[in-house]
């Protein structure tokens, strides 16, 4: 933590960055994102196992971008996000200074995006035991049972869009649900509207989701949304083979290869 604070202080003091995005102590036992522009305030920065929110979501936010070049505290999911954003032309080497935090909690500075890409590909995206169990359960279900499971799980959703707001990959300035000519997804919250929203979002995440879990954590009523996106990842691997998050390789869903399986056409 001290190293992190020192480095943040250096960066602000020298003017290399105008802003440090990190974590600070919140109310009760919560941690929350903090935006530091004053070198003295770097004392507020903390880092511990509670710091799991994906800060990369702020890199695309106009209100944050206007402040100036940021430095961002980046755990592994955040690093993966940064590379995915770079592969979608949202970030370059100069967009931000990356204050990486390794899974052991050590500070690691990265000077280029390539360095980050090499680093993150040492680690497999693993499913947590709990999620594995539920996915296995779902895989055993008949189509009718699965439909009932998802209807029961998604009907309580009230379309607050916290999942979308917390997801760093949802950076579209005008979301599909905000289109009204035509209205692709119904606005009100009810069974059909909720299913359409979540299924559509899962499809938009296919091949792009970096498995940070921000969506499920943000949901105020604890809907296990990440199951949909994780299942998408499994399906993507099955259809298009193993893919790694990479700057230049191109996303499976936005690049065409002659050997792509076209089972959906049958």
């Amino acid at each position: 933590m001290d190293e992190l604070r020192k480095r943040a202080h250096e960066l602000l003091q020298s003017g290399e960055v105008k802003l440090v995005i990190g974590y600070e102590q919140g109310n009760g036992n919560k941690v929350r994102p903090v935006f530091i522009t004053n070198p003295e305030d770097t004392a507020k920065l903390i880092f511990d196992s509670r710091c799991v929110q994906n800060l990369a979501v702020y890199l695309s936010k106009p209100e944050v971008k206007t402040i100036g070049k940021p430095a961002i505290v980046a755990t592994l999911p955040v690093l993966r996000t940064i590379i995915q954003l770079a592969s979608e032309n949202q970030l370059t080497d100069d967009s931000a200074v990356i204050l990486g935090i390794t899974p052991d909690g050590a500070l690691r500075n990265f000077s280029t995006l390539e360095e980050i890409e090499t680093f993150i590909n040492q680690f497999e995206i693993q499913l947590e035991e709990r999620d594995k169990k539920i996915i296995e359960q779902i895989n055993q279900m008949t189509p009718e049972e699965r439909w009932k499971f998802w209807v029961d799980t998604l009907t309580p959703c009230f379309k607050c869009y916290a999942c979308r707001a917390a997801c760093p990959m949802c950076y579209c300035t005008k979301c599909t649900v905000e289109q009204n000519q035509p209205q692709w997804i119904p606005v009100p919250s009810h069974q059909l509207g909720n299913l359409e929203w979540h299924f559509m979002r899962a499809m938009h995440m296919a091949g792009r989701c970096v498995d940070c879990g921000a969506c499920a954590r943000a949901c105020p009523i604890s809907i296990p949304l990440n199951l949909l996106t994780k299942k998408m990842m499994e399906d993507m691997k099955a259809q298009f083979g193993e893919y790694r998050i990479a700057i230049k390789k191109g996303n499976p869903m936005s690049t065409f290869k002659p050997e792509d399986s076209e089972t959906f056409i049958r």
Partner: protein
Amino acid sequence: MTIKRLIIQKTSLEKFFDVLIQKGKTIYAPKRKNEKINYEVVNHFSEVCDDYIQTTQSAKSIIFPRTEKLFNYNKGKGNITLEDFDPDQVPEAVIWGVRPCDAAGFIPLTAIFNWDSKDEIYNTRFEKTTIIAFSCTSADESCFCTSVGGNPGNTNGADILLTGMGDKNLFLAEVITEKGEKAVSFAPNLFEEDPGIEKEKYLADLPKQFNQEEIKDKLQAFFESDLWKKQSLRCLGCGACAYVCPTCACFDIQDEVHGKEGKRVRCWDSCGLSLFTLHTSGHNPRSVQSQRWRQRLMHKFSYMPQRLAVYGCTGCGRCSRACPVDMNMLEHLISIQEIQK
């Protein structure tokens, strides 16, 4: 009417619950599902959860649902027919187990839906719903009802308020309204005269943390302040706080089509979402999050008291608990109070 004070044993309370079911009421009570506790239809007393400080969602969806049909239309053969809302379709309901802050939340909601023009749909649901509240014996760090004119044993907005004594085998039942009286009249033998119980000693201790009148007066001068930007930088711009809030009433009107038929619905909306005030021309009076955050706070603590003589917050703390990035209402209000002019 003056509040009538009665007492009821825990076993009789269960019986009272059953009587209400027998009378055909649809009872909504806190029920545990996965890790969250929310209001659901319950049929048996054993389903009711009472081991919590506050539910995740408010009970407003029972009277102001997420999606409410306003009318049906049919474009049949050239001319259009409209089918109006039918008040007889609305069931008699009981909300069992709200906290005083939630019961009080219906007061600003009712004020908004009756401001000059009366929303008959809202009023029908409200009139057919009996609100049975339970006092709070404990609070957490997000609660602040005492700072906004409430308290853990407040009767505002409730039809009946039950306060559990010590080990919760005996309850003080305060019957506040005619609706509450009617409910008690279904099983009067279950209730006894109050021997003079002092309920205050059974309530949670929650010191007042800010003065809402002071804040209302301060806010008038703070429209252009940069405090809004500072407070809202981490806000993600979702609708979680508005949707779990017991007093937030902002809504959208949408048409849903099924071939030649369809309906117009009223559904929840949030001033925190960027689309809320967007004009068709592309102009948006509240184009950045700080302006939207300012609207949220000022609407509740300045505009509503000025126009409707009622504050838009009851201190339930749900917004703070639900927010993914800890936008804590209590913290923000205290920091406004501390700003020197």
